[in-house]
């Protein structure tokens, strides 16, 4: 309480906010109690099974899926995303690449796949969530190094940067409103500074993550979609140009950091 009065006396509101970030320590204690256990391990196993399980009208596995390192190579693939693929002539994030593989290799219906990519209330995880979680775990410990050699990849970064600072919606919010300063929080949630390498790598490197309050693994695509909802922006479509651009901006800022996903969050 003393500290609080001090802040008021100094009119240093930013200082109060910065100090309250220390409340994250409570959640660190929770993580300690769990040991190294993260319920995401179940979803990692389920994702691996789905990869090797024949599916769709073609009844094929996803082993022929090229995630950028060659067909079937999964270890270390995720840290190079988002990246340009010549076969689609587009920069893709992992989620849209998976959808592409499931439609082209397994012959599955695009509409059905994208109708509900993320779990809703009462669901116990979707295929996309499981596959993304396993593939992220296949890059655990690897250095985040998104491809930026193709002109389209650099253009995607620039577009992402532009959207990041673009203010819109009924609240005149941009991503930067919450994510361009460090040591700030929203309610009790610490907000990463996504313009800095440390903030971006902490964020990019910890998703997909198991959300304890939801009992589910959530992906970065879901995280961004929920940010859009909080900003009162139109619903963000999985694998859309805007989603891929923002992910490219974040991943490039995070370059050099370590992939620690799947994470464990409140």
């Amino acid at each position, binding site marked *: 309480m003393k500290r609080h009065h001090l802040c008021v006396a100094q009119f240093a509101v930013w200082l109060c906010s910065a100090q309250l970030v220390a409340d994250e320590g409570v959640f660190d204690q929770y993580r300690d*109690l*769990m*040991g190294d*256990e993260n*319920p995401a*391990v*179940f979803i990692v*196993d*389920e994702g691996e099974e789905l990869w090797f399980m024949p599916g769709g009208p073609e009844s094929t596995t996803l082993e022929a899926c090229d995630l950028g390192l060659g067909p079937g190579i999964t270890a270390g693939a995720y840290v190079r995303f988002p990246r340009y693929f010549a076969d689609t002539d587009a920069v893709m994030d992992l989620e849209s690449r998976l959808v592409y593989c499931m439609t082209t290799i397994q012959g599955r219906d695009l509409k059905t796949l994208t109708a509900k990519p993320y779990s*809703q*209330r*009462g669901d*116990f995880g979707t295929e996309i969530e499981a596959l993304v979680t396993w593939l992220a775990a296949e890059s655990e410990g690897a250095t985040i190094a998104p491809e930026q050699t193709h002109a389209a990849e650099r253009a995607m970064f620039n577009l992402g940067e532009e959207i990041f600072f673009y203010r819109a919606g009924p609240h005149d919010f941009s991503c930067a409103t919450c994510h361009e300063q460090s040591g700030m929080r929203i309610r009790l949630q610490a907000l990463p500074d996504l313009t800095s390498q440390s903030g971006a790598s902490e964020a990019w490197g910890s998703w997909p993550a198991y959300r*304890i309050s939801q*009992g*589910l693994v959530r992906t970065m695509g879901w995280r961004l979609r929920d940010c859009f909802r909080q900003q009162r922006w139109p619903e963000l479509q999985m694998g859309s140009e805007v989603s891929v651009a923002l992910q490219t901006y974040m991943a490039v800022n995070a370059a050099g950091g370590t992939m620690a996903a799947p994470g464990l969050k409140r």
Partner: protein
Amino acid sequence: MAGRIRIRAQKKGDITEVKALMRHPMETGMRKDQAGDPIPAHFITEVSVFHGDQPVMQGHWGAAVSANPFLGVRFAGGKSGDIVRVVWTDNQGGTGEGDTTIR
């Protein structure tokens, strides 16, 4: 895919510490889905920990326990190499079981 259990059992002095993570939705029966229809209750009602054939803990659980529950138990008398088994039953008649050896 419910039914899976991840168990670790570690000896610390005379005490064996068991940590078990269970795959289960733990639906309370009080929630509604996106369409507004109630989601049926589905939760673990009984969970037991065995050291060999000997029960060392029995618990009655309810809807208040989180999804994918994490259980920590300590008991005395375990030896390295002994089998520790965790078993649960849910309100829909489903069961889950897993075992490990004490390290």
